[in-house]
C-alpha cells in the first residue's frame, strides 16, 4: 500500500510539473491543482497508512487504546483541501476575466508587466 501511494504521489508530482511548464494558462492551473493534490496525499501518507483503531478514548479510561490512527494529518489535509478549493475558485475566475479582457491563453504572451 505504501509503495502504491508513493508511486501515485510521484506520478502526481510529475504530471503537475509537466502541466505547469506547459504554455497554456488553463494547463498551468490544472498543474497547480495536481500539485496541491500531490502535496495533500503526501501529508496523508507520511503519517503512515495503517489499519488501526479510531483514536477515541473509551468510556471510563483516561488514555487511548494501543495503536490508534493518528488523526492530525487528516485534519491538516482537510484544512489544506478547503484552502486549496477557495484559492482555485478565485484563480479560475481570474483566468476567465483575463481571457475576457485580453483574449490571451498562451502564457508566453503575458509579458506586458515584465518591462
Amino acid at each position, binding site marked *: 500500500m505504501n509503495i502504491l501511494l508513493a508511486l501515485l504521489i510521484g506520478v502526481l508530482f510529475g504530471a503537475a510539473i509537466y502541466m505547469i511548464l506547459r504554455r497554456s494558462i488553463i494547463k*498551468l492551473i490544472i498543474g*497547480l491543482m495536481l*500539485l496541491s493534490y500531490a502535496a495533500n496525499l503526501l*501529508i496523508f501518507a507520511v503519517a503512515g497508512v495503517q489499519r488501526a483503531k479510531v483514536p477515541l478514548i473509551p468510556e471510563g479510561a483516561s488514555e487511548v487504546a494501543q495503536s490508534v490512527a493518528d488523526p492530525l494529518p487528516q485534519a*491538516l489535509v482537510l484544512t489544506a483541501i478547503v*484552502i486549496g478549493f477557495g484559492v482555485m475558485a*478565485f484563480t479560475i475566475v*481570474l483566468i476567465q476575466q*483575463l481571457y475576457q479582457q485580453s483574449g490571451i491563453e498562451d502564457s508566453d504572451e503575458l509579458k*506586458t508587466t515584465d518591462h
Partner: protein
Amino acid sequence: MPSINTYTSLLVAAPVLYPLLLGLITLALWNSRRWQQWVNVAGSALFVVIGILLLNTVLNDGILVMQGGNWRAPFGISLVADVFSAVMVVITTIMAFAVSVYSVSSMHHDEELQDARRSIQFAYYPLLNIMYMGINGAFLTGDIFNLYVWFEVMLISSFVLLSLGQRKFQLEGTLKYVSINLLSSTFFLIGVGLLYALTGTLNMADLAVKVPQVEQQGLVMLVSIFFLVAFGIKSAVFPLFFWLPASYHTPPISISAIFAGMLTKVGVYSLIRVFSLIFVTNVAFTHHILLWIAGFTMLVGVMGAAVQYDIRRILSFHIISQIGYMLMGLALFSPLALAGAVFYIMHHIIVKANLFLVGGVVERVSGQFDVRRVGGLLNAYPLLAVLFLIPALSLAGIPPLSGFWSKFLVIKAGIDLQSWLIVFVALFVGLLTLFSMIKIWNEGFWAPAPEDAVPFTERLLSRRNILLILPVAMLAGITLWIGFYPEPFFQIAEKAANQLLNPNEYITKVLGVAP
C-alpha cells in the same frame, strides 16, 4: 497548568481579532463611502494603540502566550508574542493607519478607477483589514501549520486586492503573483507534512526541542530547504524574485505601498523565526546558503533597479535588494547581526511604503509614474521634494537617517565576523541604491519638465491632497525619529535578537516547562 490570564490572552489575540472586527464593520458600511472611510481611519488609529499596548506589555513582562481553547501546548494552537513579533505587529498597525488615511483620497480620486468604484467600496477596506488579520496571525502564531493557514488568509485577500479594478495588466500581474504563491504554499505544506512525520509535533516551541533529537539530521536539512524555498519565494529572494517586479506595480498605489511594506517582510519574518528557532542544528550548512542568497539578492535587486524608469518598478527592485540585507543579518547569526536584521525590517517597512506613497503623490500632481516624463517637481513642489528626499536618502543609508543605522549594524556584524565578501557587497549595493534614488531625483525633481508634459495645476495642500501628504509626513517623521534617536529602537531590536538566539524563554513560556 499555565495560569489562565484573561487579559494577557486577550491582548495577544487582539491584533488578530480586531482587524477581523474592523473588516466586518467596514463591510457593513460598504454602501456609504464616507462612513466606511472615516470609520476605517478611526478604527486603524485604535489598532495602533492595541499594537503599542502589546509591545509595551511584552517589553515589561516578557513573552506572552495564549493557548487557544485553553488546550495545553503542544496539543492546542498557541499564539505567542515575543519582542520580535510584537515589533512586527506594531509596524503593521502603523502602516495600516498610514494607508487608511492615504486611501481616503487616493482610492476615490483616481480617474482610472472610476469604473470599479462599487467593487472597490465593496472589497477594498474589508479585505485590507482581513489581510492585516492574516499578517498579524502569521507574526503571532506559535504553530507551524497555523502559520500556513495565516499565510493563506493573507494571500487570498492580497490576490483580490491585487486584482481590484480589473484592468488588463493588473489581471496579468495577479495571475503571475497567484501562480507563484500557490507553488510556494505547496512547498510550505510539504515541508510542514515532512516535519510532522519526523517529529510528530507542529508546535514551534516543541519543534525546537524535538528537531535536535531527530536521528536522521540529513532529512531535517532537506525539510529546512523546503521551508527556505517556500519562504524564499514569499520574501522574493534571489533567484525566486521574478514575480515581484512583475506584479507589485500593477494595483492602485496604496495597495502597492502596503504590499511593498508588509507582505515580503512576512516571508522574511518566517525565515528568521524558522531558522533561529527550529533549524539551528546545522548552522554551518543552512546559514551558509542563506549568506550566498543574501549577497546575490542584494546585488541582483539593485542592478535590476538601475535600468528601470517607472518609480514603482525602481522601488519594487529595491525591495528585493533590501531583503538581502535582512537575510544577511539572519545568515551571519550573531547577536548584533540579528539585532541589525530586526532593526532593518523596522526601518525598511516604513521607508519603503513611504516611498511608494510619495510615488502616488508624484502621480497625482503629474499624472505620471515614469520619471523621464516628469520634471521640475523641485521648483513646483519643494515640500514634496523634501518628503521624497527623507525616505530616499534613508533607503540609501545616508547618515543620520534610519537607513544608515540599520546598514551600519548588519555591516558591523559582518566585519566582526570577518565575512569580508558580504560586507563589500553590502557597501557596494548601498552605493548603487544611492545611484537609483538620485536617478529619480534628477529626472523627476531636478530636470526641467519635458515639452509634452502637462503643466502642474494641483495644489499640494488642497483639501483632497492634504490627506495624501499627511501620512507621508508622518512616516517621514518616524524615519527622522529613528535616525536621530536610534537608541530605544536599537534596544528593542537587541532584545528581540537575544530572545531569538536564546529560545529557552520562548520554549519555557509556551510549553510551561523548561526544556
